[in-house]
């Protein structure tokens, strides 16, 4: 593509622009755009950059709160964790690139999200990953798992940031579109947070980091386009990550940030130089003039079009205070990184680009942002599912099976079985502050704030099974589960980030999933005072008309003010009593039991309503558990999620390397008591002196609290139900994934 390219309707269409969008561009320019300008408009108005399908809905979410310093709109969200410390965090998807090239796709996903965080002045202190793969039996799944996990580890381990937790699901709905969502959490001082608004005229614009190559040109438009069977052939150049350079970039940026040279800074993410320059200029209300000859280039003869649309990794754009240029140059040269002054801010409000002494782009900046399409796509409300009633036929013994067999099936079910094969490939202990991580199988990771006695708890969650059955309840549940997981550590949940993965929004039923999931999420955020401060939308996760299950992945952060008062899933002592907080009705619809044992959920007609989340009970139950932890009443704690009471108890048993005995339940079928997935519940492990106080105080607060069993011994059993050796059950739990990966 060069400047003389004639803009035909075909070229317009190839840039993903509609005829009316093209006409709007011509109107704003007062002329036809040249190819560079067309390219710039097309990426800025792509789904990925403009959020055109989602913007009006995202605007309704709760984004403010007592501890929120910066909500959505910057590179990442910023929250206050006292003493002048802030946490900066965000989650982002790298789904399509990871499907095409799993190692590099996942690696560059991790690199990209880290840049969003350190660009704001934070040192990354923890990474998380939320992964969804297809059916294990699908021929591509194993290679994708291996590549993605190695890519995440390869990048995160090299930069020296611990990957402390995550989640992994397998479902045929992701066969053609896996999800790789990476989250990064950083730590900064409140008075040293950097923003992207390029204020002031005549200030130097600096490019730092790696050179620009022809990587992933059109990546941003690709990320917004539906796949078809030809995508394999149309593969664009994939970006290759260079974690070594990223590590140098982190150190160099933080060193420069310690001086007062920077006015604004922005990483080059999707749509690289284009979106970083335009976003900085737009936020600062200025224009930018860049000389593209100055851009460090990896290859000869790069055109302006290629430079502006390249997605080469490990690059940043900065506006510096005049007179401070030498400080930046010195630091970046010390770290062996490219650094170049590529332009200046202007008072024209325009993006002007020159190349080989010719003007190759001259467009007003405001319309790029303000006139970006903001669609009101039609949507339909999701089907209301029936409630699955208890039925004697659900009893394992009636089905010609047994509780032991059922339990083994569940323990080796891909969504439950241990993910050790994955997280052992992640360095979880570098930086010396990981108090708890995937290793314990607990609910949230705990990372200490270096040199202090406080910590943050971090979790990611979403149950696609529930979201498929009912996007509204599923959205609500995802937020509530993260809140519950953080609460399990004794943390005060503060805020969340999200990664909203859905199918093609041009289909009203998919748009309906999106709108209703958001509605559920928002209700939970408001009830739990738990705002959304950053996030990302990934649409068009669809192949040949097959959309993924709606998957609003949520990443939550909580604050542990005093590490002497926190809890984990470990810490149980032989003979301790198990108390169940929260009411059990034995909800079976959309449960793991319904799917893995009863074979429901497989097709639309067999999907039943997922467990509803009562946000009032969620709040009082959680607040009570947190209070017990702060009062040091609890030895160990775990929330109840997939597989209900039985699986929660077994996971606790495995971590503590002790057996469990579960009592009979109240008046309901045993399978429903053991495997029902009612929400808002916690399993507490307490010493004998705490049993009565914990139960009786709960009663005065109107909270359900029942003694359900004991921990200790070397068997895992439920009265009238299963009875297995601890070691045997643990082996079943540990073997599925390594055996699958080796097969």
């Amino acid at each position, binding site marked *: 593509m060069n400047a003389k390219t004639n803009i035909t309707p075909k070229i317009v269409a190839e840039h993903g622009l509609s005829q009316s969008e093209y006409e709007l561009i011509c109107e704003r320019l007062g002329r036809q755009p040249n190819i560079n300008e067309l390219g710039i408009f097309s990426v800025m108005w792509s789904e990925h950059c403009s959020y055109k399908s989602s913007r009006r809905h995202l605007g309704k979410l709760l984004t403010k709160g007592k501890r929120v310093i910066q909500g959505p709109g910057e590179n990442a969200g910023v929250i206050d964790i006292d003493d002048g410390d802030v946490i900066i965090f965000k989650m982002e998807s790298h789904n399509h690139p990871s499907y095409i090239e799993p190692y590099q796709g996942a690696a560059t996903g991790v690199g990209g999200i880290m840049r969003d965080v350190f660009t704001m002045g934070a040192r990354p202190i923890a990474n998380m990953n939320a992964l969804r793969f297809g059916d294990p039996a699908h021929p591509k799944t194993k290679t994708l798992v291996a590549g993605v996990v190695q890519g995440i580890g390869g990048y995160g381990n090299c930069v020296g940031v611990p990957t402390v937790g995550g989640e992994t699901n397998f479902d045929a709905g992701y066969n053609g579109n896996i999800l790789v969502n990476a989250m990064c959490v950083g730590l900064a001082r409140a008075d040293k947070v950097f923003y992207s608004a390029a204020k002031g005229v005549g200030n130097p614009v600096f490019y730092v980091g790696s050179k620009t190559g022809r990587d992933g040109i059109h990546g941003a438009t690709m990320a917004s386009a539906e796949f078809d069977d030809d995508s394999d052939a149309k593969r664009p150049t994939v970006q290759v990550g260079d974690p070594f350079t990223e590590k140098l970039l982190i150190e160099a940026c933080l060193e420069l940030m310690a001086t007062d040279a920077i006015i604004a800074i922005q990483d080059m993410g999707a749509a690289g130089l284009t979106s970083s320059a335009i976003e900085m200029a737009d936020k600062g209300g200025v224009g930018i003039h860049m000389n593209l000859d100055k851009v460090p280039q990896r290859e000869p003869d790069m055109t302006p079009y290629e430079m502006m649309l390249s997605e080469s990794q490990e690059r940043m754009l900065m506006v510096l205070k005049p007179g401070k240029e030498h400080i930046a140059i010195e630091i970046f040269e010390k770290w062996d990184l490219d650094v170049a002054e590529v332009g200046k801010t202007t008072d024209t409000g325009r993006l002007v680009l020159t190349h080989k002494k010719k003007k190759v782009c001259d467009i007003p900046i405001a319309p790029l942002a303000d006139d970006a399409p903001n669609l009101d796509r039609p949507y339909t409300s999701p089907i209301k599912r029936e409630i699955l009633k208890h039925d004697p036929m659900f009893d394992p013994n009636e089905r010609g099976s047994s509780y032991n067999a059922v339990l083994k099936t569940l323990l080796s079910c891909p969504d439950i079985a241990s993910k050790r094969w994955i997280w052992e490939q992640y360095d979880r*202990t570098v930086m*010396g502050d990981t108090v708890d991580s995937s290793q314990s199988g607990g609910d949230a990771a705990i990372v*200490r704030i270096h040199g202090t006695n406080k910590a943050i708890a971090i979790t990611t969650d979403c149950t696609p099974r529930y979201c498929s059955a009912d996007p509204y309840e599923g959205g609500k549940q995802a937020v509530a589960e993260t809140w519950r997981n953080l609460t399990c550590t004794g943390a005060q949940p503060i805020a969340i980030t999200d990664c909203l993965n859905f199918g093609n929004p041009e289909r009203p039923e998919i748009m309906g999933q999106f709108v209703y999931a958001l509605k559920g999420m928002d209700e939970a955020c408001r009830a739990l005072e738990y705002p959304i401060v950053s996030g990302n939308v990934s649409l068009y996760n669809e192949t040949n008309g097959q959309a993924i299950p709606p998957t609003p992945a949520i990443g939550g952060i909580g604050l542990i003010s005093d590490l002497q008062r926190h809890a984990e899933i470990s810490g149980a002592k032989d003979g301790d009593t198990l108390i169940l907080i929260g009411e059990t009705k034995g909800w079976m619809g959309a449960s793991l039991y319904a799917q893995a044992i009863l074979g429901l959920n497989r097709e639309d007609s067999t999907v039943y309503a997922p467990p509803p989340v009562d946000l009032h009970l969620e709040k009082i139950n959680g607040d009570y558990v947190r209070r017990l932890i702060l009062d040091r009443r609890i030895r160990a704690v775990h929330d109840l999620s997939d597989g209900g009471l039985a699986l929660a108890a077994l996971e606790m048993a495995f971590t503590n390397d002790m057996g469990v005995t579960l009592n009979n339940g109240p008046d309901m079928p045993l399978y429903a008591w053991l495997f029902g997935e009612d929400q808002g519940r916690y399993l507490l492990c307490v010493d004998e002196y705490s049993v009565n106080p914990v139960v009786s105080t709960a009663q005065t607060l109107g909270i359900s609290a029942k003694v359900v069993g004991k921990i200790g011994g070397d068997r895992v059993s439920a009265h009238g139900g299963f009875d297995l050796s601890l070691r045997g059950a643990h082996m079943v739990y540990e073997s599925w994934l390594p055996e699958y990966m080796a097969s």
Partner: protein
Amino acid sequence: MKTAVIVFPASNCDRDAAVALEKVTGRSVQMVWHEERTLPTVDFVVIPGGFSYGDYLRSGAIAARSPIVQDIVRKAKTGLPVAGFCNGFQVLTESGLLPGALMRNKGLRFVCKPQKLNIVNSSSMFTKAYKNQTEITVPIAHFDGNYYADDDTLSEMRKSGQIIFTYEGNPNGSSKDIAGISNKAGNVLGMMPHPERAIDPMHGGTDGLKLFKSVLESIQ
């Protein structure tokens, strides 16, 4: 005891090593940039873990050719105590201060977990504070930890007490389960496990502390 930690591009356990040394010595640690040509006057040098130069070419290879390592090699030969953990171990074998080489893990996967180690030589200057403790648990986190040396070298090392730590349950395919070795003179230690990540009950346990205490005792 005065100590220094070397910083290469993409070292990432440099801070962790400094925290450990400060905790044990009670004094601040000198961080030395790889381009320096001479070490400051110190009693003990740590080459930290990480991915110096991205582990490109071979782990530790490029760092081993840096100016500061040339000075470390000179001074180690006159008796300066030096320890390399993880990537630091790789730098030490690449520099020739320690025999053998560290290759890709046999399982071809990065592995991070708490690891039981046997203390094979408890009289070395890096282990004497463990007294008659024979087993410790220390985190490992590496991709290239598979120790290789030819048979002659291995038996030579065994005879002269250079095998300091072995793994209980080999996580990476190392010859003779080797986790950590010293040079013949006994003043240079290289080990894949991270003792600097085992100095705190909240994080990795405290089994690494005595390694640093051993050096402190030996020097005083």
